[in-house]
């Protein structure tokens, strides 16, 4: 008998973990509450640092899912411990007895309208990073109308106590630099500004991308937060910021403002967390057993975590985390259900 593993969440972490667990010989069941697999990756156009097409990466993840049972448009209705396992009832009426559960519920983008001073949803030419990716994918957005001056605001809803998030979202700096270059490529006459607090170019090739943005694309980086945005009568935006390098207030008129909305713990993930009785840490993400040595284990036996459910991560980090979770689950199941990997059975199939 093969052990059942339930994966909650069909984003990149869920896909990567299920493919690995399936390959390890478990019976994997993936539940996704929306109607498509791929999570935020499916909505993105290209990926930093080298502009890899997101669709290619997603196709690769989906391509190794043979044998995994996927339920989209499905919610977890209840989940209860039953002996060593978990009895899970799904909204489509199916009941599963899962020996291990992997929670990969990911993140939600910060709702940029909550930073009202930036005017998202109020002014005509303010968009978010996600809107811009959608525009790159489809070429359609009424708010983007041959802009000649474009601004990117870093850290919208991140590193901002007032908006309820002290931590860094990790991906926005690199995304902003990537998107700024892409916009320059799309509108070669445009002047592009990035308003940042710090540029956190921590990953491999990120510094190269930042250098190219300045050298090859002429992006102007201004260290200072945007204070407020107002709309002029002609529809252009008047942006007030502080240039902390020269210690002077600054005012520019822009045709398009892109807000780099950060990461927040996903609302649907919080629901799963409360069903399981899992604790959140102060930042709202799930608590892990040990942040150094057991990052993929929750304090509840048999419940594993991966990806952005335990804090903001880049895509490669998320995938690595998912693979880590797969090996952790494998170890756990072999320890707790030793008969599951019956040696005779294994020899019979392997030889």
């Amino acid at each position: 008998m093969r052990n059942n593993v339930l994966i909650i969440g069909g984003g990149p972490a869920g896909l990567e973990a299920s493919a690995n667990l399936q390959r390890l010989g478990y019976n994997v069941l993936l539940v996704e509450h929306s109607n498509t697999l791929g999570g935020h990756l499916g909505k993105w156009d290209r990926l930093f640092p080298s502009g890899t097409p997101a669709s290619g990466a997603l196709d690769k993840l989906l391509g190794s899912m043979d044998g995994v049972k996927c339920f989209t448009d499905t919610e977890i209705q209840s989940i209860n411990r039953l002996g060593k396992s978990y009895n899970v009832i799904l909204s489509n009426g199916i009941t599963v007895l899962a020996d291990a559960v992997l929670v990969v519920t990911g993140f939600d983008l910060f709702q940029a309208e909550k930073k009202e001073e930036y005017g998202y949803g109020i002014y005509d030419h303010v968009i978010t990073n996600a809107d811009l990716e959608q525009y790159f994918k489809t070429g359609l957005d009424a708010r983007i109308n041959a802009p000649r001056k474009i601004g990117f605001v870093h850290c919208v809803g991140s590193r901002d106590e007032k908006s309820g998030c002290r931590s860094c979202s990790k991906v926005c700096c690199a995304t902003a630099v990537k998107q700024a270059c892409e916009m320059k490529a799309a509108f070669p006459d445009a002047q592009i500004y990035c308003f940042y607090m710090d540029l956190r170019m921590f990953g491999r090739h990120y510094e190269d991308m930042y250098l190219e943005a300045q050298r090859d694309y002429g992006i102007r980086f201004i260290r200072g937060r945007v204070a407020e945005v107002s709309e002029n009568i002609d529809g252009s935006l008047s942006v007030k910021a502080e240039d902390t390098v020269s210690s002077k207030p600054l005012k520019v008129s822009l045709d398009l403002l892109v807000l780099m909305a950060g990461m927040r713990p996903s609302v649907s993930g919080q629901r799963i967390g409360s069903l399981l009785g899992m604790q959140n840490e102060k930042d709202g993400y799930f608590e892990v057993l040990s942040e150094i040595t057991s990052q993929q284990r929750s304090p509840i036996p048999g419940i594993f975590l991966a990806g952005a459910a335990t804090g903001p991560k880049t895509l490669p980090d998320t995938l690595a985390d998912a693979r880590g979770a797969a090996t952790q689950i494998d170890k756990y199941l072999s320890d707790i259900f030793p008969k599951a990997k019956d040696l005779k059975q294994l020899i019979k199939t392997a030889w």
Partner: protein
Amino acid sequence: MMPANIFPILAAQASPEVIDRIPSSYSHFVIPFVAGITFFLVWIFVGLIRVLTQLNHDDRMQFWTSLLNPITAGKNIRDLFCDCLFHTKIWQRKPLLGYMHSAIAFGWFMLIVLGHIEVALFVPKHLSYGEGGLFYPIFYRYFVWIRPGHETLRGAFFFFLMDFFLLYVLTGIGLAMFKRFRSIVLGMRHTTKPSLADRVALYSLWMIFPLRLLAESFTADLSGGSFLTLGMNHLLHFLFGDKLYFQPFWWAYSICLGTFFAAMPFSRYMHILTEVLWILFRNAGLKPSHPRKGVAEAEIYACSSCGLCLDACPMNVQKKNLKYSSVYFIRFLRRHNERKIAEIADKCLMCDKCHALCPVSVDAPALRRAQRQTTNDHLPYDYSYLDTAPVKLHEAAIPRHPELDSGSDSSKVLYFAGCMSHLTPRIIKAVEELFKKAGTEYVFADREGGICCGRPLLLAGKKEAAAKTMDANKSMIKASGCKTLVLSCPICYKVFKEEYNLAGIRVVHYTQYFKELIDAGKLNVGKSGEKIVYHDPCELGRGCNVYEEPRTVLRQVGDLVKAGHEYDESICCGGSLGSLTLSQNDRRKITDAAIKDLTIAFPETIVTACPLCLKTFSERSTVPVKDFAEVLTNHCG
């Protein structure tokens, strides 16, 4: 009441003319009482002189002249009765608690007054220095006995009144004892932790009246009494036979009184007399300029530590923050605990609710501002931006409505959005739209950015910095030539109205201005069935007493439902600029509590009239939060 004989030799000359009463002479048991009250009287006399000398010259003149002003004098008398004796402000909110306080205060007051009347009527000689000596019957029922066969109806009437008020006080004391253990029954979720002196005074106060009942009951057959003391007396005779040893009870009664008076200056009960001075100061319009001296001293000793501000304080959604309440701030001011004083002063949100709900209107936020001023006012500031800030006036190009043209010429309106409205652009958008719809000719004072109105600086105790920004704004407003100043931020509104002295310029909040436009028929609003709840911003409601204008308008556009706490009991949104150190986490807890309180009647929309409240609520609420002007634009034809 019985005579306290201070000088036994003089008192020995008991007057022979008294025929219906037998006054007797000195007894040792009065010593504890005389010692306690002498100490107390000296203490308050010295304190009074100190407070008066600490006032600056202008304040002192203002105080003396206020006493001569008949209007203030009338107000003083009314306030002294209502606030000190009847506690009407507590009655209005919590009747049982009001009964408790007024029973003890008014009851005791009446016992003292009636006691003096009894002395004046029945042993008049003792009031005269020449004949009776320096001898005054405080313990009347010990020292003045009825001559057998001389009971009068008039005497019985006073005996009845004395017993009645004693019973009245005893019911109050009973409630007070009960409140120590179950305060929630009297409407208080939290109650103050008494200090050591408070406890000494508290327990002696509890004991005074039961002991008085016992003492007077023991002598009621000799000194006279009514339903209570005589009844008790019969019971005591029944229990203990013919001979009653009353001395121990009079001793105990005197000791309790003496202890109470001796502990009073160090306890919260100092408020009983200090609040008289504070009410006179308050009505004279004096404001504390120092957190500890002069007016402030009267104010902090007027605090009765009743703890009504504990439940009022929005910070107390978390029990750990109880220590930042005004009552403890004042206690630490009394004790000169500088570290805690500074910490608590900075924590406060300055929502003013403790001031609004205080039975004697102790203005703790003003004390906190004065405290902040001691550290913040002299910090160095860079004022260069005041000169460089481009204060340009932008006249909006408005197509004129021919039909409204006749009315719109006379008044040009100056609109000052302020920093906070600039962070909530939907307010500015809605206000401009409404101006255009009503055909108001307006000048947008700070479209290109302005400078701070000064209120946040004042709240932080930066008086000098505030004065500089206020001067800069003042010249900008004067230069505009406008006669009406409209503000969309209550924080600006309060300071423009109260501190700027803009003679000849009418300062209005946009809720008031749009109500006028609607009343004049310039704005037409339609009613929908939308369930609306209105949140009173602190600075607009408690700060400027604007409660009805926004409600009147909102009733015309939707179905206005009630919040849990409204008007002056409204809960701060948690975003207040007033606090210098409260953490975001604590603020969020307050915001969530305020939203929960606003949505008890399941409204579809929360409406507020302050950009800061709007922003704070929008970030946390699941119910849509809208600005007052935004709601009007949605309902304007």
